């Protein structure tokens, strides 16, 4: 095997070749075996990664808005309610396996402990990885007071 010695390493090697004493035992009658290890210069294999600003990000796929919608400029959290009593709570399964059954258990819990809360379990109709459908969100805005959304996994 041939090695390419980096120029910086050559200087080093000129003055102090590295000797590794790796074996010295009585059974070899005191003979000392020495090995010379050459330094090798190699190239970083990583590929350049360029962070893109929101404006530079490519459009996606999967729906009219693209697979990934643009980042919102800012997110404002909705005003919280004082209580869930007598409110309508949508339980939205986004489509990952097990999500719908989990929402059914949330429904059961409210029936057991807070029966005045009206719960509506729903499966998000659009693609699991995209926000490509608005009908359910419009329905919730009109008829619902709050949403539990999940379960990502």
């Amino acid at each position, binding site marked *: 095997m041939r*090695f*390419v*010695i*980096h120029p*910086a390493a050559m200087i080093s090697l000129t003055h102090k070749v*590295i000797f590794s004493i790796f074996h010295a035992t009585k059974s070899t009658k005191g003979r000392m075996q020495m090995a010379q*290890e*050459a*330094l*090798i*210069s*190699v*190239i*970083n*294999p*990583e*590929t*350049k*990664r*360029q*962070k*893109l600003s929101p404006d*530079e*990000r490519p459009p*996606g796929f999967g729906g009219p808005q693209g*697979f*990934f919608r643009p*980042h*919102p400029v800012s*997110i*404002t*959290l909705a005003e*919280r*309610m004082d209580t*869930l009593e007598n409110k309508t709570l949508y339980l939205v399964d986004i*489509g*990952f*396996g*097990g*999500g719908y*059954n*989990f929402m059914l*258990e*949330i429904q*059961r*819990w409210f029936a057991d402990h807070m029966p005045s809360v009206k719960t509506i379990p729903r*499966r*998000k*109709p*659009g693609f*699991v990885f995209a926000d490509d*459908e608005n009908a359910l969100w419009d329905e919730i805005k009109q008829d619902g007071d*709050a*949403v*539990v*959304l*999940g*379960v*990502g*996994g």
Partner: protein
Amino acid sequence: MAPISAYTMEAVVKNDPRAIVLPFIFTPNPVVGMSSEVLYKKLLEGNDPATGRPVIDEIIDILTKPQEKKKPESKKESESIRPRETLQPDTEDNLQQIFYERGWTDGLPIILPTEERVHKMLTGTKRSPDELVGEVYDHDHHELIKYTVGDLAVTAVMAGAKPEHFPVVLAIASLRQSSLRPSTTAFGSMLLVNGPIRNELGMNAGIGAFSPVNQANSVIGRAWTIMSICWGYAKPKRTLWSSQGCNDLYNNMCVPENEERSVWIPFHVDKGYKPEESVVSLFRGWSVINSIGCAAHRSITEELNLEFGVMPPLHSRATIILDPLVAANLKDNEGFHTKQDYCRHLSENIKIPAGQYWKTDYIDMLISSQANAGVEPYASWKLLPDDALIAPFTNPENINLIVVGGETSPLWKASEYGHSGSASIDEWR
């Protein structure tokens, strides 16, 4: 809104500026497959692993108590990467360890990419080292990964490729696909070579074509994985999420088609290339079933019917790899003169119960939305009783037939892998 995620995705939430500002609740993992009582008692009334508080209490609090919008953590910018920079000289053993520890390898020893070896690799193409071959976009981190001929020469050396293999490696890279996918599932990849270059490189399409015995098959396939790793696709909980992983990714099932022994036209000709062109084709999916025995008591169509019952196709996609003996039997004895004839036959004869189809996790997850949107035939299939038979291969053009093997036994491999692109190798010589 109270958004909920399984705790395993906490890193995604923390790294995504869209998610970090939201009051996420985490459940223990997994949610899927849990009984009603486990979901109720352990996941809902049990604690959020991130906070130690009951999940149901958090749901109620998040919906009824003022929430402060969380601020994204100011993160230190990732270390500036200078591709093709020369590293500090070191011993071979130390460099092997450094490459491994920095996550630049598949765990196996690599050929160290010295300037000399990289220059030699570049003699395998007339293209300039600075020429951009492609770019891939990392959606999770909003990063564009650009790679040149020179970058790929480095990773090709590492994989053990020779200059004559390099045009194949460049053609693979030109398709802009990582062999490793950022999914929690066990995605696998496959790589097929067609045309004269198969024999020029001494690739093995015969006995043991998929076995670890042939240099060109091994190193070309490995080169796709090494380049993907160096693009950054093997960083656990950043880009690598596959819970179990897939060992096919060591060389991506890299094989040439056995064109000489096939009774049908080669795969690349199916895709519009000329027979004398050399072409690489990529495939990906989750599951490959190796036939344990031959079609001794049932026809191969009946055998495939059983196999696709447990891995229903997404959008009719499947890749079936037949030993030349099987292809010859289908043509000479069963009258399927072309691959298309047999694909149509499969489309008409493979049938599974509708309930079995829809209760397949990935079908429900990825196809139900189309049924909900009224897309046919999915919308109609949703209305069927569970025991009604459906023919899930509605588009026979999405079934890929490939002939590989050494004719020691009439066997096959069935997969739901889809064809994800082909590229000319000759353009990169």
